């Protein structure tokens, strides 16, 4: 099973610069043309479920607007 991840973009910080869209190896990011941030930018959103949680979008983000999560298997407690 491929590792699956997701991101949460904070509209308060995102300026729609598109650096993350450019950098994303899975091409799962796009500007959300239906929404505006409080500062008047179109924020970034995830458009596919194939995010691996690699974090490259966050590494290139000039506004620290992205939180990256990854699914991690839980180890079963030994009985």
């Amino acid at each position, binding site marked *: 099973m491929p590792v699956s*991840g997701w991101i949460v973009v*904070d509209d*308060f*910080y995102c*300026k*729609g*610069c*598109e*650096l993350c869209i*450019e*950098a994303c190896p899975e091409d799962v990011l796009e500007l959300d043309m239906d929404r505006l941030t409080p*500062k008047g*930018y179109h924020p970034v959103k995830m458009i596919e479920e194939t995010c691996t*949680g*690699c*974090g*490259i979008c*966050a*590494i*290139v*983000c*000039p*506004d*620290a*607007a*992205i*939180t*990256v*999560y*990854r*699914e*991690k*298997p*839980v180890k079963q407690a030994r009985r």
Partner: protein
Amino acid sequence: MVSTTAEVVYQRPESFTDVHTHYCPGCTHGIAHRLIAEVIDEMGLREKTIGVAPVGCSVFAYKYFKMDFVEAPHGRAPAMATGIKRVLPENTVFTYQGDGDLASIGMAEIMHAAARGENITVIFINNAIYGMTGGQMAPTTLPGMKTTSSPFGRDVELTGHPIRMAEILAIMDGSGYIVRRSLHNAANIRKSKKAIRLAFEAQERGLGFSMVELLSSCPTNWKISVRDSMEFIADKMIPVFPLGDYKVSPSLEGLKV
């Protein structure tokens, strides 16, 4: 079926305030700020760090970092940092300066701070232009590059050649760690962060003056898109300002960060 939990891979550094920066979309000042905040978090230095902000686009840097900060007159950040570090040697002191600030009006201060071997860290943002004042030619402007004060392209016969600060500061006996990195893509941003970490490690070890020069973008004043500005750094700036380690104190060699 394996059950899973959510693991945080990346989140906003603790050393950042909850403030929206005034930088233009895609400006790499934000990336440089973030890397500094991440390094300070990782090294646990926040409570004892004092930053010195410059004049330039990053004049409000003190609003964005959750730590002590002072604002220096244009170009004088290394002089101010010198005073702070000498009075408070236990604190970590860094300056954050643009190329107009550091290599033009502040040339004397940076040269002498390095020559004196002041135990401070300098983060130098080289975007080849004066950003804040509307895109005038800087000492680092590339030959032939158009700016508002060189509208036909920089003529080196008339206005001289770009100044390579990392190379110059590396020959100073007082410097301990001098490198040049770039912020144009993820791989180079990772390397830049390592360099910033080593620069702060150098200061913690008392190895003298440390500087990380970061090739940066200014899409607004270069008058190109954010994407093209990253290509401009890779294709046009790096050939004039080669990336590399210009001086690494032997005490830092082999240090894993």
